[in-house]
């Protein structure tokens, strides 16, 4: 299977960073997921083969980390934090608002495949709560109205 050139050069470089091959596994899984969208059977088999691991070894690691997924998600994964600092400043209301606007529940994906919604644990934006991460981008000090603007931005981006 083929990944991007950037993926391959980073993978080759990372192998030189550690005394054991499997040490590259966790960051490599996330970079692979960024390219493919999720950790498919094919990705798992490919990385297991490259790192001399069994597919079960790789699956065991995947199931531990909350950012890794073996199921396809929307193009934009909207991650709403509801942990304590966000909870106190409207994180739950923001999640409910997103559920209503997107018409999906926690871990759901919109029918056009554009958005997924996920309730997440603390993302390190406590002093700027409530906060949301869309893929890797932080959006902070949000209100339901500002959230609508954020979602519109991504809809626009998808059309371009």
């Amino acid at each position, binding site marked *: 299977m083929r990944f991007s050139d950037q993926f391959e050069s980073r993978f080759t470089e990372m192998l030189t960073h550690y005394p054991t091959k499997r040490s590259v596994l966790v*960051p490599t899984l996330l970079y692979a997921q960024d390219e493919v969208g999720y950790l498919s059977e094919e990705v798992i088999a490919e990385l297991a083969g490259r790192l001399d691991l069994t597919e079960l070894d790789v699956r065991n690691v995947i199931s531990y980390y909350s950012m890794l997924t073996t199921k396809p998600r929307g193009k934009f994964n909207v991650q709403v934090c509801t942990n304590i*600092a966000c909870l106190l400043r409207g994180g739950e209301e923001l999640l409910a608002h997103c559920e209503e606007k997107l018409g999906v529940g926690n871990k759901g994906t919109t029918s056009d495949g554009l958005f997924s919604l996920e309730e997440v644990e603390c993302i390190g934006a406590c002093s700027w709560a409530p906060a949301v991460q869309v893929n890797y981008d932080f959006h902070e000090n949000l209100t339901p109205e500002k959230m609508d603007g954020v979602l519109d931005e991504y809809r626009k981006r998808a059309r371009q």
Partner: protein
Amino acid sequence: MAELVSHPDEVRVVAKRFGMGATNIDRYVELDGYKALRKALGMQPDAIINEVKNSGLRGRGGAGFNTGLKWSFVPKVSAKPKYILCNGDESEPGTCKDRLIFEHDPHAVIEGAMIAGIAVGARSAYIYIRGEYRYLLDIMQKAIADAYAKGFAGKNIFGSGYDFDLYWHGGAGAYEVGEESALMESLEGKRGVPRIRPPFPAVVGLWGGPTVINNAETLASVPHIILGGAEWFAGLGTPKNGGTRLFCLSGHLNQPGVYELPMGYNLKKMIYDVGGGIPNGRKLKAVVPGGSSCPLLTADEIDLAMDFDTLMKAGSMLGSGGLVVVDDSTCMVKFALRIMKFYRHESCGWCIPCREGTDWLEKTLTRFHSGGGIKKDIDNIQYLSENMLGRTFCPLGDAAALPTISIVKKFRKEFEDHLEGKPCPFEKASAARQLPVFA
């Protein structure tokens, strides 16, 4: 990009270069960058360790162990390579300070890691950054590449004959990986399950080699200590609590933000002056003083100095510097439930008291909050929590138990107010969510 704030009482050491473009290596050098590394290369390793020990620098990740003392545990001679591991897996709810360090001053972490390496005789350092902080991992990759390009890292640094390699490493979402032994497992490409100790990482760590694991803020403090001296750094704080600390103020405050204040700064002042007090004319109900794993303090327990020893005496912990302020409109049963939901989600399941304890506590608190609680549950919540204490490989079990015990003890009346099918007194009728009842 996270917003920066300031307050006249701030003493900027670690935050000195925030907002000054120091991600650029030339700018960092202009702002006294890499001077401390040069100085350390001319020092005896023991002199570096003593300087850091005497500065009173204590681990900023939460445990608050004397950093120089930790370094001194690394054996002088080792058949296996020694390593420095920077813990940038910042995930403790309420904590968002390492994020600013990586965003504004990544070279300070690099420089601190290299000085730690010289002190203990390591030749390489790994900088582990949590997966959600992808943009910071990108910044760190560039910073490391720039350091190599300038000859500040790699072979023969500054012509000293000393070789030192630096590597970045990204996580993929796991609170528990912030625990030092789980962090090493994760770096080795495994599930972040904790290791039993002894042996401690200083003796047997990464790939079996002696390893020093320090929080990003701890390492970023080190160059300032080498340049300014132990006495100066120690003098900024209180006895045995040297220096300053990045306090992350969040929750019900008028001016939340990350402020660098001297160790021992008064908590009441921190809330009402630095943080601007409680909005909407509300009153203070409780404070989480150092991240969600710390026992909560009530409104009449806040006139104290924010340092490790004072907080310990007050029955809580200074923790990771994440201060979450809770006003009187908040339901403490719900707050306890949200904390427990987090720990249940993050428990790796390795140790039974933690795996089962967090699960049953979340179920009990869920039923309680939705009005299905019985009187016996109140003591049961406390009993279950107490049975997790000290019975797990890593402190995640304690982290779940400690705030819960404190909430039951200090806010028992709020639990009683939920009894006999009464709806949560704090929930607006319209906004009340139906929570599942486990009969």
